[in-house]
């Protein structure tokens, strides 16, 4: 092949000439230049381009090079000739040299708009090959030849700047930060880094700059409104809807390349460098059987700038106290409400009892039996008995009105929840070794006295360039957490005593009262508790404490070995070890111990309390071996990876109980306790006669001891994918993965069923027919199809029995078969079609993306009913389907672009996602109206559907009525024949999500506001209960609007004497029918400002005086009152009750 036939590549493929790997060794004297060039070509692999006139065969040259760089060698060869060279891609162009001028050294500094020097900026002289880089102080020095030479400043994160020398020798420039979306983003899929241009799949990448606009302790919350398709609503995160019924619905979390088992909440938010969300099959299919719910890939920061850098950040979040009064009567209203019921209870005639005397007798027996009696109830009782006068009764009621338990609780028990988070990152970047040490400390007061939640996160990571072709990365991340909270079932709840109860007396001493388990007034000596059962929330919060200890450690090491040009081998290994232990000490005089001792008397040790402990332990490892091959051939470019991954997860644990435990003495007397006797003790005789203790035994004693069965799962995956790019215009992608898992055993047909994907994309903006449209910066079309999987943990293909059981009659251990054999078990399968486009117009002022998808999930593991003669009434098999359709739009528009540094800039962004979810097939598993309304599934409806009884209000006598299948109204329970009367009243999942963000910068100030809209979801809220007597506790607010014969125009059933079941002619409504009535399904649509962040960056001068590189201050407001809610009953759709408390964040960021 003649050298001259080599094609010249497009000039935009220009690559740096610095640092050739190829070294030239050549010794020739006065030989034809062509022969020297031929030698260099053979040694370097570079092709030459020149024309025959420039390099004539008679042209002679000399060279004496030993291990010289290509550029040096060429300079030597050409130095005596009037020729110069330029390297363009893999081609060396030889051309006639331009006229030479005396060389002048130009020096200067490069800084950012914040005044900080920028290291690593390429400075080159336009039209020549000369270039240099700025050092860590931003300084550079380059030789220019002509006074009209132009310097080009190119940085990774800055806009390119061209500036003429105009004869100067000292030039300092300020570079503007690049618009994030415009820069050539490298997308990390966890398996490989691939240029965004080459991607065919639907992905969204957020940089740390984007994430740092807002502070959230949990990085997941920071994704809200930034990722089209990702919805984090009421504690559930989904990507593109729910595509399963019984399997995991959460996305897979990948940290630094490997999936992690630890919680995403534990990831240090300051350490996140980049988050990529993989949404469609082509992007996610490489994760095979775990990818159906989408993948969130998180990469942590690495040392970038040379030298050592130190960054300190701190954010303090202060939360408002929660609204305890939500939907409850005020204390005074409650006294009135109780009085109304009590007038009826103690009526001489026409009351609850035949006579007042009968009411007195019944109350006396209730008191003596240890039932709960509210203070007002007792006052009425005393009055009815004649112990107090009418005036005394009135006085007592007046006194009660002065009490306000919830207010006192809020003032004395609750604290403004304060979360402090501090982060210190020390990074150093040497020639061959880079390391980061990151310390993160979190401390929260949990918003209540005697509680705390602390966590220390230490992350050390390093990377070592062993040689030019071999690099090693390793890291240890350790998280130590300690949570202290109340273990009491009663003390941490303000809503378990009457609203008018006092918590603290006027003299500041605690007021004693009882829980609903007992009363203050029992004087019957035969039914007295062993010890006092008086209770006070504040006291109790200090006596029954649960401590949780978390210890998570993650170790990883991986290697990158470029063994051949373009071929990289990357073995990786990660080990995680997570331990969580709890220890709950109920002191001897804690309420629960006093209560249990009163019930079980001598069966429990007389002294000491109890210590309940539990430990759960998980260890997980992943080993991956992967080969990556990347090569460009002229217009063709390929990128291949193939690998195998082995993974094991193991969880285990146990719990124990010490009775008669005394922490001070370190003694216990568990051995003296007979558990069979405690179990056999089913009904109390003295204290609370006839009270059934079986639930107490389980809850406080038996269930505290146990084994968390060891579960081990093993997975093996073999995968490969390939991207082929032609001329940077067309990309074709394919992936293939086979997963094996231990849950599949028997049928060869279903083992290792392959999951695959394919995609194409077209960089339309690179086509010549669009080149005349200057306003189009980038336009790309994408289309993908692929299949991903999901698995229900806990299903098995083999018949297994649970052997942890015990036959209490024969006193022998027993086994019961819990899992039917299902040899046809296989992965759930989700096939996704995705069509999308990415665009950037008007010099990056408007950019965004649009996607349409259709996710068809089949083979879902759902319950299929069977004739019970098969041994089971139902079995979980691969027999369900769900369809998700959706649209996603992301738009970013720069309203003001700063004309100069620190000028006004205003960018606004909008993210819109809509998702429609529908079950395409499921065997009807809800045989009764109640089962359907309690969470049944139906073909044709969303997975998270609300099905409701049709509530038709109250009859003329206040009887709640529901429509039956035949259209008639019924007051009794609907039967399976009335299933068709159950109506669909919406889905709990939002159909549409819109977020609007505004980011304004001026001088050192910045303002970032994020507003969100969630629409189309429904929720059940403010469901009335039947209040017929005097429940011990606060009264709900809706009873003020309940039915009475005088005020019939309401759908809230009557209370007290008017309650259904008490009022003559009525009966108690059937179980569950009010709860699941359509009338109490409320629309959940809302618009909220999620957060508003005001930032201030101290001016460079001030900062320099302080001896630091930069200081940022931040003030953030989270969750102010909703701007708009569709429901008119003031329910926060995000909680189903009182609104999320507003919080304030004070942040500080210092770079040293």
């Amino acid at each position, binding site marked *: 092949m003649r050298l001259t036939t080599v094609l010249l590549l497009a000039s935009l493929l220009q690559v740096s000439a610095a640092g050739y790997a190829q070294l030239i060794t050549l010794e020739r004297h006065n030989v034809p230049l062509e022969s020297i060039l031929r030698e260099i070509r053979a040694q370097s692999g570079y092709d030459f381009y020149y024309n025959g006139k420039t390099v004539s065969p008679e042209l002679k040259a000399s060279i004496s090079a030993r291990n010289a760089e290509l550029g040096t060698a060429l300079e030597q060869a050409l130095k005596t000739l009037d020729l110069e060279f330029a390297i363009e891609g893999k081609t060396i162009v030889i051309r006639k040299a331009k006229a030479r001028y005396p060389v002048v050294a130009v020096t200067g500094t490069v800084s950012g708009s914040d005044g900080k020097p920028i290291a690593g900026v390429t400075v080159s002289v336009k039209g020549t090959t000369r270039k240099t880089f700025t050092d860590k102080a931003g300084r550079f020095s380059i030789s220019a030849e002509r006074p009209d030479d132009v310097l080009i400043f190119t940085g990774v994160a800055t806009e390119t700047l061209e500036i003429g020398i105009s004869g100067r020798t000292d030039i300092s420039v300020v570079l503007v930060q690049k618009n994030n979306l415009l820069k050539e983003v490298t997308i990390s899929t966890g398996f490989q880094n691939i240029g965004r241009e080459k991607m065919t799949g639907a992905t969204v990448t957020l940089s740390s700059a984007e994430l740092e606009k807002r502070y959230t302790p949990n990085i997941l919350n920071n994704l809200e409104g930034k990722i089209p398709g990702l919805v984090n609503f009421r504690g559930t995160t989904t990507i593109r809807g729910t595509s399963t019924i019984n399997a995991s619905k959460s996305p897979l979390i990948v940290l630094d390349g490997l999936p992690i088992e630890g919680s995403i909440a534990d990831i240090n938010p300051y350490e996140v460098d980049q988050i990529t969300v993989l949404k469609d099959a082509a992007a996610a299919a490489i994760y095979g059987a775990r990818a159906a719910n989408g993948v969130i890939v998180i990469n942590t920061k690495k040392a970038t700038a040379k030298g050592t850098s130190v960054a300190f950040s701190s954010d303090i979040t202060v939360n408002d106290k929660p609204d305890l009064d939500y939907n409850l009567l005020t204390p005074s209203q409650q006294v009135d409400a109780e009085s109304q019921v009590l007038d009826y209870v103690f009526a001489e005639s026409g009351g609850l009892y035949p006579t007042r005397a009968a009411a007195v007798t019944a109350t006396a027996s209730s008191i003596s039996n240890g039932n709960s009696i509210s203070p007002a109830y007792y006052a009425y009782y005393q009055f009815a008995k004649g112990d107090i006068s009418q005036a005394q009764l009135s006085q007592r009621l007046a006194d009660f009105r002065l009490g306000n338990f919830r207010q006192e609780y809020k003032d004395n028990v609750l604290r403004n929840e304060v979360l402090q988070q501090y982060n210190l990152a020390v990074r150093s970047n040497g020639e061959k070794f880079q390391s980061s040490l990151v310390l993160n400390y979190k401390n929260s007061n949990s918003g209540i006295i005697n509680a705390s939640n602390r966590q220390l996160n230490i992350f050390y990571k390093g990377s070592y360039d062993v040689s030019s072709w071999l690099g090693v990365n390793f890291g240890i991340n350790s998280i130590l957490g300690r949570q202290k909270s109340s273990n009491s079932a009663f003390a941490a709840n303000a809503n378990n005593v009457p609203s008018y109860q006092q918590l603290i007396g006027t003299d500041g001493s605690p007021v004693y009262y009882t829980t609903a388990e007992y009363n203050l007034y029992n004087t019957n000596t035969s039914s007295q508790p062993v010890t006092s059962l008086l209770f006070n929330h504040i006291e109790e919060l200090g006596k029954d404490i649960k401590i949780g200890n978390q210890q998570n450690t993650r170790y990883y090491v991986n290697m990158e070995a470029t063994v051949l040009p373009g071929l990289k081998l990357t073995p990786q290994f990660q080990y995680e070890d997570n331990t969580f232990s709890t220890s709950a000490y109920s002191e001897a005089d804690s309420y629960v111990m006093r209560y249990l001792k009163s019930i079980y008397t001598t069966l429990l040790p007389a002294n000491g309390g109890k210590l309940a402990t539990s430990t759960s332990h998980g260890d997980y490892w992943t080993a991956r071996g992967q080969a990556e091959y990347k090569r460009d051939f002229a217009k063709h470019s390929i990128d291949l990876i193939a690998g195998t991954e082995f993974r094991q997860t193991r969880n285990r644990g146990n719990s124990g109980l010490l009775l008669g435990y005394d922490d001070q003495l370190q003694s216990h007397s568990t051995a003296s306790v007979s558990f069979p006797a405690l179990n056999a003790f089913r009904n109390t005789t003295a204290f609370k006669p006839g009270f059934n203790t079986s639930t107490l035994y389980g809850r406080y004693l038996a269930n505290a001891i146990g084994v968390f069965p060891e579960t081990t799962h093993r997975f093996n995956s073999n995968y490969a994918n390939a991207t082929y790019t032609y001329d940077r215009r067309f990309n074709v992608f394919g992936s293939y993965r086979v997963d094996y898992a231990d849950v599949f055993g028997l049928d060869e047909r279903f083992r290792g069923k392959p999951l695959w994907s394919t995609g194409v994309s077209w960089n339309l903006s690179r086509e010549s027919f669009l080149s005349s449209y200057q306003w189009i910066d980038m336009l790309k079309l994408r289309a993908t199809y692929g299949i991903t999987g999901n698995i229900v943990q806990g299903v098995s293909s083999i018949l297994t029995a649970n052997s942890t059981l015990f036959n209490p009659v024969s*006193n022998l251990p*027993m086994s019961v078969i819990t899992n039917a054999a299902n040899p046809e078990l296989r992965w759930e399968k989700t096939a996704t079609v995705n069509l999308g486009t990415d665009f950037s117009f008007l010099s990056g002022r408007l950019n965004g993306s649009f996607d349409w998808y259709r996710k068809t999930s089949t083979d879902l593991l759902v319950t299929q009913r069977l004739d019970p003669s*098969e041994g089971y009434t139902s079995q979980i098999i691969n027999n369900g389907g769900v369809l998700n359709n959706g649209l996603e739009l992301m738009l970013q528009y720069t309203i003001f672009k700063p004309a100069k540094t620190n000028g006004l800039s205003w960018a606004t962004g909008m993210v819109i996602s809509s998702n429609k979810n529908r079950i395409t097939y499921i065997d009807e598993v809800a045989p009764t109206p109640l089962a359907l309304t309690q969470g049944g599934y139906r073909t044709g409806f969303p997975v998270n559907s609300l099905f409701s009884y049709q509530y038709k209000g109250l009859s003329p006598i206040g009887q709640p009525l529901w429509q039956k299948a035949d259209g008639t109204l019924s007051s009794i329970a609907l039967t399976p024949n009335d299933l068709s009367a159950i109506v669909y009243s919406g889905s709990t999942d939002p159909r549409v999500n819109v977020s609007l963000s505004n980011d304004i910068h001026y001088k050192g100030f910045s303002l970032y506001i994020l507003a969100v809209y969630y629409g189309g979801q429904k929720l059940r809220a403010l469901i009335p209960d039947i209040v017929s007597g005097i429940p011990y506790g606060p009264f709900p607010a809706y009873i003020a609007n309940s039915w009475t014969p005088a005020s019939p125009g309401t759908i809230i059933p009557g209370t007290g004497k008017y309650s259904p079941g008490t009022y003559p002619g009525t009966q108690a409504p059937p179980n569950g029918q009010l709860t699941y009535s359509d009338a109490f399904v409320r629309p959940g649509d809302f618009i909220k400002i999620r957060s508003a962040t005001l930032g201030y960056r101290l001016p460079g001068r001030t900062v320099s005086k302080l001896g630091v590189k930069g200081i940022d201050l931040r003030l953030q407001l989270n969750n102010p009152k909703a701007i708009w809610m569709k429901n008119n009953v003031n329910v926060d759709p995000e909680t189903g009750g009182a609104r999320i408390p507003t919080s304030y964040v004070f942040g500080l960021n210092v770079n040293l």
Partner: protein
Amino acid sequence: MKKLFIAIYILAGTILLASSCKKFTEITPKGSNILSRVTDLDLLLNFNYTSNSATGDTLFAKTTAQGAFSAYDVGNLVNDTYAYSTNIPSLISTKQQSLNYAYTVYDEAVDRKNLAVTDIKYEKLYFLINNVYNVVIKNADQAAGDRTIAKRLKAEALILRAYMHYLLVNFYAKAYNPTTAHTDGGIPYVREDNVTTQANLKVSVAEVYANILSDIDAGLQLGSLPAVPQNNMRVGQGFAFGIKALVLMTLRRYPEALAEANKSLAINSFISNDRLFAPVGAVPFGKPQSTAQENLFYMAQGGNPLISTPSLETTESVYEPGNIINSYVKPYYPSGNPFSGIPTSKLWLSSANPYAVNTAGLTTSDTYLIKAECLARSGDLMGSLDIINQIRQNRIHPSVYAPVTAANEAEAMALLMRTERIEFLYTMKNYLNLKRWTTDPVYKPTIIRTVNGVSYSLKPESSLWIFPFPQSATNYNTNLSQNY
């Protein structure tokens, strides 16, 4: 060179790992018993045949018999008791279309198959057959461990599989009638080779009984059953001979039944003695679940027949005068019956000690009375009456007790039937016996219930004797046509 070495090392490691893919994922899950050892199968047979306090569709509730062996519906049908915790006059006056209503007023017009959405008896009996007995029978021969024990477990499973099918065929099919049994629809007889994905076939009543007998014989032929089992939720020869006697008597093979009953009684002939109970004796009223000596196999709802209301006919005419429980212990709510709405009816409320009624298992009362019936039918009236009196002697206050006599088979049978009604009150046995007699040419029973002066009668030919297959079965198995 170093580069090449590392490359080869990494590649070789990867290939080595990859070659072991399948093996890697083949692990035995811990915490799940995969039933490969004899001891595992033994644990399976320790099933709790009573109900625990858990309710609903929970794992814990499902590890017991739940309500499957309560005698509420069968007791109501044969007028032993009234519908559980129900106001009877109100039930009758509102004509509520419910199973309780159908069984209270014996109304065949009520569409029972539509009301029977599920049936815990059906579910639980087949659960036991498939997931206890069939698993043991299938795995016993291959399971690792003591062969003698493996054989014993298999024999236990065979015997119990036969018994559960005996109960099922009696609930859901016509009573055995030698002339029509070959064409009468029965139930699926489910063996260890059952395939879940294929709907089970319903076989004839005659075929069901043939299978029952063959399972019992197979169990006995293994020769490995102990005479007395380790506890009364396991079975031994006493139970095996007892149910063989019961099945043979149902098939009207009285002499053979008699022989088997005698074999069982030779192992256990204990009769409980009510005269020991206070106030007649000194022992507090009660009967333990786990150790009552008369149990051959204990299978029950568990504990007392709490909140059960015996019918007026039961308390006023079936109980003999001087019956210790009805007239002396009186485990009834002292101030009337707040549930039934029937004045003078009694409500069982004693809860001081458990009085564990064996509702669905087998006791020596069964074997004694099988023997008595076989003797009466073969003309040995004296032998029959001896047994009847032996039982009565233990039930009636000594001051009132007098032995009964009979002049002929019919009189002896009448005495036997009366004794049985009391002996088996609150159990499923009265339903099973009375249904057995509905096809008897001579002793066909007609049940008469009188509520507030109105009488309702359950004729021997009534379809109500046959329980409907629940919809949870018929909807998923088209072979299950109703047997009435």
